């Protein structure tokens, strides 16, 4: 989400962008959307802020709004490549149900801006018999993954995602997960481990520096360094690497 804001949708030159190369001033954006992004690119219902602090509904609402603007050849703060339209249809389902539960009779997903589009897509989906995802508190975290997988399955690609080019929607938040670092990686690792081992990992978090890592924990340490799926793929292949006597010698020397 770092490339989120392009010049054409910024309200004015923001010094933060120049002073902090490569880093998005999410704090400032969250405090005052109007100062950072033009009104037409905002979603009334939701405040644009650090995506890791936004609900899935809010994130998708923004993406959906911008996607629809792109479809209408309007200015957008980002460009979708191979737009994964069905993801936003799914989002409409989720939003629709959440709104229903919340007693919001307004059934739109973008704060009224895209009311007509939202309703018509709802009807299209109903005609196609697509399932409606029911909101559930305990499933909240999974919904984002589901949408991400859906993006991947459709070959969709969003250019803002820094983890973008392979169309893995999970990548949109990957940077933040990675920044938070070990917890995200730990979760992944723990999912692949047995119960006893899982408890052990929770009790003994991995060290931060390579020098502190025991040789038997090196692979786990490497896995924790980045959530980038290409990197994780390489780490996974470590199991298949040859081990020669020379390697063992070097390995023991560390």
């Amino acid at each position: 989400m770092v490339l989120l804001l392009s010049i054409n949708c910024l309200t004015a030159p923001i010094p933060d962008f120049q002073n902090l190369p490569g880093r998005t001033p999410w704090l400032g954006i969250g405090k005052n959307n109007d100062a950072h992004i033009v009104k037409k690119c905002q979603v009334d219902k939701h405040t644009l802020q650090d995506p890791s602090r936004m609900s899935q509904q809010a994130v998708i609402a923004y993406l959906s709004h911008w996607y629809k603007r792109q479809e209408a050849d309007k200015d957008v703060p980002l460009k979708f490549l191979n737009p994964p339209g069905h993801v936003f249809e799914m989002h409409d389902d989720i939003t629709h149900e959440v709104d229903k539960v919340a007693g919001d009779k307004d059934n739109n997903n973008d704060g009224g801006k895209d009311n007509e589009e939202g309703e018509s897509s709802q009807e299209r989906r109903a005609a196609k018999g697509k399932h409606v995802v029911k909101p559930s508190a305990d499933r909240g975290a999974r919904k984002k993954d589901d949408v991400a997988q859906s993006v991947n399955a459709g070959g969709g690609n969003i250019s803002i995602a820094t983890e973008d080019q392979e169309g893995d929607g999970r990548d949109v938040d990957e940077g933040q997960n990675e920044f938070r670092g070990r917890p995200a990686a730990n979760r992944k690792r723990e999912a692949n481990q047995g119960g006893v081992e899982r408890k052990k990992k929770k009790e003994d978090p991995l060290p931060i520096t390579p020098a502190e890592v025991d040789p038997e924990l090196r692979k786990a340490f490497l896995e924790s360094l980045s959530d980038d799926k290409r990197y994780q793929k390489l780490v996974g292949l470590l199991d298949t690497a040859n081990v020669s006597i020379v390697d063992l010698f070097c390995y023991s020397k560390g």
Partner: protein
Amino acid sequence: MNAVGRPAPDWGHWGYGKEFLPASFHKTTGAGSLSHVVSWIKGNPLTLFRDEPAGYYRVENTLLVLGLTLRELARVLFMEEDTFQDYPAYVRNSELTIKDWDNARVGCQMLVNYVQDGPVPKSDESNGKAPDSASRVPEKNKVLQ
């Protein structure tokens, strides 16, 4: 230790004892900088050595350099502003950008391709052409077996 290809950055070993990579990593050029890492990756640290695929130690060390690089870039680019203040000044003032992040990930992808498809034949490398799958190195010679 690194008899194959270009030398790895000086911090790229299991004895490195600091939480953050050195200031040299955040510089535009020079030993230990990100550009050094990227060119090191482009030199393919996993290449065959005496017709033998990369061994465990070499693969592990390569992944350490890659992993530390990605972690450091993520800290610079995706850090929360409230945590930002706890980081060393050279990290806070780092000039690394998303482009650098992309470069590192391109290098990562290059290694994935290499590992999956095997070494690129010399003739294709020199022509700058992407080799077809038939011209790839046989299965038995793949980097990781």
